[in-house]
């Protein structure tokens, strides 16, 4: 699995940070989400389904997302 | 082979719309247009078409817009108060370029007015009733036979120019019975469809005629429709160049087609010194008055407009070239006369009006003709 973030779509509401059970995500100095700690990610998908901005997506490693910008 | 029948204007207009391929009607009961709903309710299922009585006038035009987007030719009919209610979505159909026909069987207004009496006071509302700038097509038949022809034409123009088209009937023509011979076959125009594959289709990218090809919902061509200003893909935009381009095109597609859209008839206009300009129900006593005047040796002529919008200015200027006086009878306080004033010397114009819910008597038009000719008082 891979955790993909499209920072261009992120509006920095922080919902994903709030609901991540393992503290993987954080907001950067301009208030956008970034992956702070990928090793803790359990790929539960809570960030993806709660993101209002279509900025987070979990994919199989084999899936092509065409989204890039994977910080 | 055509069949002679005795029918009302509303009925003939319905037959014209059906002959042109209209297979969807949504409406709400209102006098004096209810025959449209009743006939469509009976005829549509027999033809595999659809009729729906909606909860109000606004819902009716909304459903008609939806049906047209799904690829079915669609019409709604109403009268004054309902026409007022439909104005917002007429504007929607204009900006979203949805081919629909709206029939307005005019009665006397404002408001509930005189529901069973004729009027012609929605002429300017038809031009300017919904907010914003746009080109308009409105046709006004003057007989039962013309009501059929205009039913066909209105559906064809809507398809050809991808826009709402208004049929301005009035209670006189709508409820009058005449013997008519309906043709077995009529010329039918269908909207032009996309020529390329879905990937390259832009739903609002016009051809040289300023009309974009249209794809039906469900045909594999996916696109967005909005009442917001939009670019060629249909996606909203607030850019000033996109705005100018779209608003201009809503006018120029009508301007470019003016010769095709313009319909009128003339009676003795070649040498007319007294020109009567009329339309719809008023044109009938006007024609009688002009014939009577000719018997009296007055060089009177009649220009009967069928196309009201876009206003046939060139036709008027030509017919008025020898006119010393121009008499404009209308069943309103003076509406189309203000448009006529834009193109001919206003000192020549005599506005003749009835605002009492009654049709003109021929003498009420003949007398001003005789006065203009310097004859009997």
């Amino acid at each position, binding site marked *: 699995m891979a955790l993909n973030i499209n920072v261009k779509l992120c509006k920095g509401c922080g919902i994903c940070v709030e609901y991540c059970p393992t503290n993987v995500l954080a907001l950067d100095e301009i208030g956008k989400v970034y992956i702070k700690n990928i090793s803790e990610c359990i790929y539960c998908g809570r960030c993806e389904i709660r993101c209002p901005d279509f900025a987070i997506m979990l994919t199989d490693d084999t899936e092509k997302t065409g989204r890039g910008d994977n910080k | 082979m055509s069949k002679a029948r005795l029918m009302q204007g509303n009925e003939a207009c319905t037959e014209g719309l059906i002959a042109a391929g209209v297979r969807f009607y949504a409406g709400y009961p209102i006098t004096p247009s209810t025959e449209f709903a009743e006939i469509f309710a009976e005829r549509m299922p027999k033809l595999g078409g659809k009729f729906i009585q909606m909860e109000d006038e606004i819902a009716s035009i909304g459903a008609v817009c939806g049906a047209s987007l799904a*690829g079915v030719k669609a019409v709604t009919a109403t009268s004054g108060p309902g026409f007022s209610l439909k104005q917002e979505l007429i504007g*929607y159909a204009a900006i979203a370029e949805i081919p629909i026909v709206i029939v307005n069987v005019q009665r006397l207004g404002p408001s509930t007015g005189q529901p069973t009496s004729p009027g012609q006071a929605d002429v300017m509302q038809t031009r300017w009733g919904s907010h914003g700038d746009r080109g308009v097509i409105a046709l006004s038949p003057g007989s039962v036979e013309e009501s059929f022809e205009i039913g066909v034409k209105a559906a064809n123009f809507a398809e050809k120019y991808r826009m709402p088209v208004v049929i301005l009937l009035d209670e006189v023509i709508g409820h009058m019975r005449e013997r008519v011979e309906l043709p077995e076959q009529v010329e039918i125009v269908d909207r032009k469809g996309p020529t390329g594959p879905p990937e390259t289709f832009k739903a609002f990218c016009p051809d040289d005629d300023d009309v974009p090809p249209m794809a039906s919902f469900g045909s594999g061509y996916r696109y967005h429709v909005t009442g917001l200003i939009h670019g060629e893909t249909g996606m909203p935009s607030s850019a000033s160049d996109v705005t100018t381009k779209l608003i201009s095109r809503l006018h120029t597609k009508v301007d470019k087609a003016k010769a095709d859209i313009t319909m009128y008839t003339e009676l003795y206009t070649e040498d007319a010194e007294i020109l009567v300009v009329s339309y719809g129900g008023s044109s009938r006593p006007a024609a009688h008055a002009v014939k009577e005047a000719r018997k009296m040796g007055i060089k009177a002529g009649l220009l009967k407009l069928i196309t009201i919008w876009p206003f046939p200015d060139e036709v008027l200027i030509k017919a008025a070239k020898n006119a010393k006086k121009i008499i404009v009878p209308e069943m309103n306080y003076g509406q189309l006369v203000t448009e006529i004033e834009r193109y001919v010397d206003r000192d020549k114009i005599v506005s003749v009006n009835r605002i009492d819910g009654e049709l003109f008597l021929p003498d009420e038009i003949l007398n001003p003709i005789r006065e203009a000719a310097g004859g009997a008082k």
Partner: protein
Amino acid sequence: MASTEKYLRKTALPHIWCPGCGNGVVLSAIVRAIDKMGLDQNKTVVVSGIGCSSRASTYLDFNTIHTAHGRALTFATGIKLANPELNVIVITGDGDATAIGGNHFIHAARRNIDLTTVIFNNSIYGMTGGQSSPATPINSLSTTAPYGQFERPFDIPALAIASGATYVARGTAFHTEMLTNLIAKGIENKGFSVIDAITQCPIAYGRRNKLRTASAMLKWQQDNSVRIEDSKKMSPKDLEGKMIIGELYKSEAPEYTALYDDLIKRVQGGSK
């Protein structure tokens, strides 16, 4: 879930909604429900009205139409009746559906026409900056209720049920998976389906009502919702002020376009 990506018009994103707005969450639940139901992308139409909610159609790659304020259901009725093969999903808001479009809402329900209506219910007119809607709760503040709302709000599911809808559910942006399933079941229902999707407007509603962040509003949704199964074990007193969520109503009734097709058969058969 990359399988839902194809339903988005990526060039139209980012969307216009404010940070933390729940509309994107409800929209992504719709997309997942469509994916779950395996609808044909070329045979699915999304119709919306006007308001924050109704901008949603812009971001979806189907035949989409952003209509006029309150009128989405009228267009949708025309589309569905003209071509019953199409799956028609209606996106609307609490004001769009139950104030200016209230008449269309009850009549679409009465006809039981096969439309799936998802109401993005944020309790407020967001696009115009936070005026009261028919769903604004009593005592809450809005720009047009500066001393507190004293009009009673609609119970939207109750309105839908009374009007004849055959599938009625309520979900929230917090309960995202449940919401997806409720929308999917609405699509599955052959008739008029209503999903009242409670969503957060932190900017135009929350800030005035002591729920300053999206997270606070989601927490409010969590704390004030009771699943319908659980509600059956609770007393009316315990249920006071709570939102019951889940599948609230399901019934069988003839669907409008199917009835019309029967009529065509009957009339055409009779004329032979």
